[in-house]
């Protein structure tokens, strides 16, 4: 196995190309010489790549014949760093992975540590975590909708109209989080065994007021997108991801549900308070960009309903089940392995943790974060061929990738 791109044996490629319809490693040397193929680099610095991401496009005129994505520009070595830090020091680091939904990142890593260490979370903290995750989903999908509006350009009232509106509503949710944790972002509020900050008095009423306001706006946005003929023309039938391919690629979350797979970890493998409430899973059969947009907008409405149920149902009691942290090496795991997955706004965020690391077993021996965004990006070589450059921007936007999470 050499590190150069020149060595490309074609042993496995033809079989999977026959099965999946598109060969991501297509050899273009026998392509029609009259076509005069052109190579276009999108990124690493490009406003529509949602971060630092490079896409090498082989073009026949305006049509893409092969797309090669390059990731890793934001690789910070988080997994290596977490091997040096202790379990309790990990939370603020993973905040920065998926910087659009830090709450679910914190929750994921602490759930993995709790599974490895065998620590129970009290019921109040489980409700609070679930509530924060649902509110974070609304904020994350709002940010996606706003940037998707920019990707669509002039289709939605000059592009920045939807952007400004969605950012305003997202800010209201961040204000609510600020009242609990003191931080607008990068909360550091989850800890092993529960939460650090309790809900302040009168907070539940503010949540209801804000969510009611956002709910009325989301109906407007749904109308704005589904009845806007330019929006529909640019998204319907564009970037169709078949069900079988989505499963094989490990794609989860709204993208998988938009391809017609009725699968959601909140309902199918319930964690925290999800076993006490019923989640209505949103699906669409077509798998195109319009389906992905519709699923996300409907998920926002569902999250508003769930958040209201959860904020009313928070039980009384302690918010942390473990002893107060007095020193960073308090929790130790000499051996054992655990994989814990939860449904974030982007799909299945998994954490695989192996015990018995440094600092006298107070650090993980190996920790792997399974980012849903990386799996979503790996679909691009299959989705892009046959489309034009302008569709590339829409397809990439519909996958909702966060490069901080994909590259780690």
């Amino acid at each position, binding site marked *: 196995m050499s590190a150069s791109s020149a060595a490309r044996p074609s042993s496995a490629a033809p079989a999977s190309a026959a099965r*999946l319809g598109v060969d991501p490693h297509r050899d273009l040397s026998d392509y029609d010489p009259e076509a005069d193929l052109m190579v276009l680099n999108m990124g690493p610095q490009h406003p529509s790549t949602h971060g630092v991401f490079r896409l090498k496009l082989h073009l026949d005129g305006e049509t893409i014949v092969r797309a090669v994505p390059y*990731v890793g520009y934001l690789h910070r070595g988080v997994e290596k760093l977490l091997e040096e830090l202790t379990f309790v020091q990990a939370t603020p680091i993973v905040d920065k992975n998926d910087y659009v939904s830090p709450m679910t990142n914190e929750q994921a890593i602490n759930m993995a540590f709790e599974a490895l260490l065998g620590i129970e979370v009290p019921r109040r903290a489980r409700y609070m975590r679930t509530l924060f995750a649902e509110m974070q989903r609304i904020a994350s999908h709002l940010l996606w909708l706003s940037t998707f509006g920019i990707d669509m350009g002039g289709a939605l009232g000059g592009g920045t109209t939807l952007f400004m509106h969605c950012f305003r509503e997202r800010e209201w949710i961040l204000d609510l989080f600020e009242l609990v944790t003191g931080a607008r972002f990068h909360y550091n509020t989850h800890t092993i065994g529960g939460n650090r900050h309790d809900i302040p008095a009168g907070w539940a009423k503010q949540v209801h007021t804000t969510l009611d306001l956002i709910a009325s706006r989301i109906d407007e946005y749904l109308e704005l997108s589904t009845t806007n003929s330019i929006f529909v023309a640019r998204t319907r039938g564009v970037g169709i991801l078949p069900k079988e391919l989505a499963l*094989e690629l*490990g794609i989860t979350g709204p993208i998988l549900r938009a391809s017609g797979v009725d699968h959601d970890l909140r309902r199918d*493998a319930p964690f925290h308070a999800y076993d006490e409430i019923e989640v209505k899973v949103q699906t669409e059969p077509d798998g195109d960009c319009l389906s992905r947009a519709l699923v996300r907008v409907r998920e926002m409405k569902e999250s508003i309903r769930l958040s209201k149920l959860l904020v009313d149902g928070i039980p009384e009691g302690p918010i942390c089940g473990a002893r107060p942290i007095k020193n960073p090496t308090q929790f130790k795991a000499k051996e*054992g392995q655990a994989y814990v997955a939860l449904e974030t706004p982007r799909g299945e965020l998994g954490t695989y943790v192996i015990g018995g690391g440094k600092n006298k077993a107070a650090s993980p021996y190996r920790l792997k974060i399974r980012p849903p965004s990386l799996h979503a990006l790996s679909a691009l070589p299959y989705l892009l061929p046959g489309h034009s450059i302008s569709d590339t921007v829409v397809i990439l936007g519909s996958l909702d990738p966060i490069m901080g999470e994909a590259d780690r």
Partner: protein
Amino acid sequence: MPTPEEFRALLEDDFGVSEWSEKQPPLIEAVDHHRLAEVLKERGYTLYVFVVASHRPGVEGAEDALTAAGYIELATGLRSPTENSQLAIWRVRVGLDEQLATLVDLFAGADWQEREQFDLVGVRFAGHPDPRRLMLPEDWEGHPLRRDYAINTPHPPWR
């Protein structure tokens, strides 16, 4: 619909697994890695979830040849997209100079995931169609998640 009991019976009957533990996924022979993935895919585990490799350095004076020389332990996870969302995880151990059969011909998502584990941990996959690094630059030396790679190792200038 796949069940945990079915998974356990499959591993005990066909793959010679006898030890079960709450905190350790079942360990199978490296030669059976691809066959198990194929059987599980047929039985409904169609969602590719993850692959994680971890480096175990050699232990001097160990009786087992693999432990003495050092090895890479690889855990793979597949999920069934059904009502119970059943997750199947298994482990294999490969020597530092050995190669493991790739799963790209079964799961297209294994392409990038195996490239990442090759990049960071240095495990090699036989038959991989595109064996390049994924995260780090192509001229990077070494594999950062190995135990003998110090966290303060100098890196080439950023480009």
